């Protein structure tokens, strides 16, 4: 089943989840587990004839509230821990053919409220150290269920990338007394070339340091460290910005753009993270309409990304791409 194995050479946990080898893999249309359960039909994960947004514990979780004992004994050098945590699935709509970009703005706004609710509830659990909200979209990303959905992992540790990001923000604050995300945003707005869109509360940019050609970050203008900190007006603005970015992606090459979408928020230990700031990142895997950006030797083995484009160019392309919905599904 699942366990956490410590890598002392990188000082990070690896999660094993052998049962996930058996998870649902491209089910036929009549056996979509994320659809509502039709009367007399195949019993799906959602025992209701219709729904709006539902959240449930993943049937094939990497982390469990009550995990089994590890399959191997660890050592002082390489300890092993039960994989305690929570893995949730968030179904955005009962429509299997839909996608987040094409949902009405109200629906996206509702989803922001759901994400905020999940962040608060999961963060309150004693064993949860980090709540990670994300969406994998498209076969290119490795999605095996095409029904529009996202996921939430409530980790028992702060994962490596958020940990590194929070530590960098803390060091920057200690050195300058300023918030690194505020300063990045200020410079991006002053320069302007990498800004894709902005509204009263959020700015979308292809950041100066983008690793993927069409990577977009949605940055909060104000000091908020988690999605539940946003008031009603900010939640509406976040939904508007999300929808705008996703529509631009779909309109870029007139097809549904695959991506990884993720939120970076404060760790869930109740400490003061005022030097940090909430943001959303999108990683589309394509560098041209028909060429994928693979994570190969330099990226996968050395952690050094090679971006085949300049952020100034891809940002301009996205900025000039219509946000209105003109994409039509096949």
């Amino acid at each position, binding site marked *: 089943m699942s366990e956490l194995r410590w890598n002392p050479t990188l000082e990070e946990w690896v999660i094993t989840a052998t049962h996930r080898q058996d998870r649902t893999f491209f089910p036929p249309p009549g056996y979509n587990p994320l659809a*509502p359960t039709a009367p007399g039909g195949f019993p799906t*994960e*959602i*025992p*209701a*004839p*219709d*729904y*709006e*947004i*539902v*959240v*449930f*514990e993943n*049937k094939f979780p990497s982390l469990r509230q009550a995990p089994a004992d590890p399959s191997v004994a660890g050592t002082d050098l390489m300890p092993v821990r039960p994989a305690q945590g929570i893995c949730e699935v968030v179904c955005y709509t009962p429509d299997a053919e839909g996608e987040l970009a094409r949902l*009405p703005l*109200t*629906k996206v*706004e*509702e989803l922001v*409220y*759901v994400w*905020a*609710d999940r962040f*608060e509830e999961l*963060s*309150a659990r*004693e064993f949860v150290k980090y709540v990670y909200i994300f969406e994998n979209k498209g076969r290119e990303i490795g999605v095996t269920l095409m029904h529009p959905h996202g996921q939430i992992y409530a980790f028992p540790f702060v994962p490596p990338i958020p940990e590194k990001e929070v530590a960098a923000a803390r060091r920057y604050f200690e050195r300058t007394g300023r918030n690194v995300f505020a300063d990045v945003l200020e410079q991006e707005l002053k320069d302007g070339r990498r800004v894709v869109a902005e509204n009263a509360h959020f700015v979308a940019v292809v950041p100066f340091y983008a690793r993927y050609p069409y990577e977009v970050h949605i940055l909060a203008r*104000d*000091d*908020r*460290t*988690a999605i*539940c*900190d*946003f*008031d*009603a*007006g900010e*939640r*509406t603005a976040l939904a508007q910005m999300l929808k705008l970015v996703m529509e631009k992606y779909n309109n870029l090459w007139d097809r549904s753009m695959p991506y990884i979408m993720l939120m970076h928020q*404060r760790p*869930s*230990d*109740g400490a*003061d*993270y*005022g030097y940090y700031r909430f943001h959303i990142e999108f990683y589309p895997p394509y560098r041209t309409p028909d060429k994928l950006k693979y994570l190969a030797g330099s990226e996968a083995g050395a952690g050094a990304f090679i971006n085949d484009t300049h952020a100034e160019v891809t940002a301009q392309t996205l900025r000039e791409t219509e946000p209105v919905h003109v994409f039509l599904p096949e």
Partner: protein
Amino acid sequence: MRLEKKRILKEDGRYLLFYHNAASASVEQREAFAEVAADATAVTATTVGAGAKTGAAQPGLAGRENADV
């Protein structure tokens, strides 16, 4: 915006949450939510920077009013 939430347990012990917005739900969705056998709780934007385990407000939000609807 105000959502309602109902929580049920599946046969294998996993929880499932239904979220409902009475203002935007279809008739079928309203009926389906009403049929869920659980008490509804409200989900709004009234929480100001809940500090997770400590309950402490997060920086930058002190004295700030939320525009709850």
